[in-house]
């Protein structure tokens, strides 16, 4: 096995179908999202739901999520309607399941969902008083700040052992007797 960090893989949005066939939980949650899209969009929503299901079969979770969000918005889904809420729950559940599968643990999923609920409540509450652009911009800035903060934390944690370029000078050879 080659070094994980050294492997320069090209990103592909597609994932193999046979891997999907084992994910019953994902199928269930995707079905919720498909149903939500169908409810939100009527006949057009059914077609969009089928398209979303096809995406889930062949593409990665994040791509399925983006496609699902665009489809819900495209079929004219109002965020306050049951169909849109159902689709949102299904799509967020898809991301949560991907997180659980990757880390093989419920704790990151719990943290993610808890943060999401808090975020949605805060988003909705703030939306009552502040324009969407400010609420959205503020939330985005908060996420960027979190990414930066976690990067600093990672450097501090790994720093005492020297990570990446900080330890690039290691492994040098001192050739005192080279001319012997």
């Amino acid at each position, binding site marked *: 096995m080659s070094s994980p960090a050294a492997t320069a893989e090209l990103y592909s949005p597609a994932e193999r179908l046979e891997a999907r066939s084992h994910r019953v939980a994902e199928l269930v949650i995707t079905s919720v999202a498909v149903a939500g899209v169908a409810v939100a969009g009527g006949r057009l929503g059914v077609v969009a739901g089928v398209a979303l299901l096809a995406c889930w079969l062949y593409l990665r979770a994040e791509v399925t999520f983006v496609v699902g969000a665009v489809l819900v918005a495209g079929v004219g889904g109002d965020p306050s309607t049951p169909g849109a809420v159902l689709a949102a729950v299904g799509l967020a559940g898809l991301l949560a399941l991907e997180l659980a599968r990757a880390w093989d643990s419920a704790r990151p999923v719990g943290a993610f969902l808890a943060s999401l609920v808090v975020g949605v409540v805060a988003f909705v509450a703030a939306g009552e008083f502040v324009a969407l652009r400010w609420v*959205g911009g503020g939330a985005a800035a908060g996420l960027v700040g979190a990414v930066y903060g976690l990067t600093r934390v*990672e450097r501090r944690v790994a720093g005492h052992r020297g990570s990446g370029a900080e330890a690039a000078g290691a492994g040098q050879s001192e050739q005192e007797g080279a001319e012997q």
Partner: protein
Amino acid sequence: MRVTRRFWVVLGFAGALVGVGLVAVDPLLAGAGLTLGLWLVAYQAWFVRTVGTVAAADLTVEPVRARVAVDAPVVVRLRARLESALPYALSVTVDLPPTVETPEPRPVVTLDAGDRSAETAFETRARVAGETTLGPAVASFRDAGGFFTGTVHGDETADLAVQPRAPRDLHVGEGGDPLTSLYGEHRTDATGAGLEPSGVREYVPGDQLSRIDWKATARLNHPHLREFDVRTTHETALVVDHRASTGAGRERETKLDYLREVALAFVNAADEHNDPIGVYTVGDEGTTTARDPAAGVEQYDPIRRVVERLTPTTAEPTATPVDGLVAPSRARAVATRLQGDPSAFARTLRPYFDASEQYVRRLGDRPLFRTVQAARAALGSGAWTVILTDDTRPRETREAARMATRNGGNVLVFLTPSVFYDPESVGEAAFERYLTFEEFRRSLAAVDRVSAFEVAPGDRLAAVVGREAGSRRHARSVAGTGQQRAAGDTGGQEPLAYSESPRPTVDEEATDE
């Protein structure tokens, strides 16, 4: 921490959704983008949480041996141990300096998800002599989602002392037993005129009046002489054989390399005691250096340089020249003709016929013997001749040693047994070869005023002769061989390679005289 393409793709999706949502004032798209961003942050947070486990890991690099020779294989252990298991795979490799050969494929220890320790060993070689640092170990990892990668360098490095290939574990001895000393103070165990006071004694008729110690005489009320330790100098002639056969052995561990070490020890000892020493070197076609004994720094350093720069000469090939190449004998004949030709053509060609190896004196056959003969002429009585050669020409060596004993000369012969420089020679066959050599050495040492020693790599000697049981077996075998030889002489068995009697015969003495 580095991010992968997947991270950027997801970040792009999130940014696009948020951007479009804000522009279109669509809270659904904006919320979807923020959700995707939060998902990314969750991955990052869990990745950062596990980095601490990797940072606390025990990553060690450990060579099995701390000292190796250049190009000698050394096994290195690479070990990784985690305090707790990780949900993703961890690869640990090692930083090797450019002077150390990197094995292909590169040594990697992989801890799969859930593993806590793993270890591997790989073989490498150092190409350059010196102090080399192996490591540290480098752990590389990628989070379970494939968004982030990280690299952590271990704390521990391992020092590897890479020694140049040179004679090592030098053994000088007799019959497998090492000598305790080679050279020392030159006490004569006699008193007389000298520098070091030894004591006083009463004057007896016949003593020189000038030797009377007047202070002692006045103190003791009777004529007394002060005695001094009589010390002498060792006049030594080193005769170093560097013919083609002394090139046997591994690179920088040839017979000549070992003989060189012994020769340099004599030069150093002479330097320490300010003894006169000379050097004569013997190539395949004659004497390559002749420097008569003398004392002083102007003598020792040039001799050291001569000895250090000795390389095995080339034996004259006997094969028929092919493809237009000219045999050395033919070239010499042409060169001789050119010497007497004053034409411009001859002058132009002459340099091309000069031999690359410079000889002081070209000797047709037995160059060692003839060199010793010439050296002996320059030595005083009682001088020491140190002959350093191998065992490929026993008859010539014996003749040379006996020649050196003339005029009261003492001789030390240092022989490199071929069996110890032939890596193919192992087991019983090697031991038999050693016995044959030992018989020759003992026969040489039996000559009056001649001491003969073996010079060999200690590890090879131990491997062939054996350290403990081998030495007893050796003693028995040597004794048995002697009896066998004696029986063989009367029983008509095949003579050995060194088919000479242990002691010189009357005929040999007469021949030498």
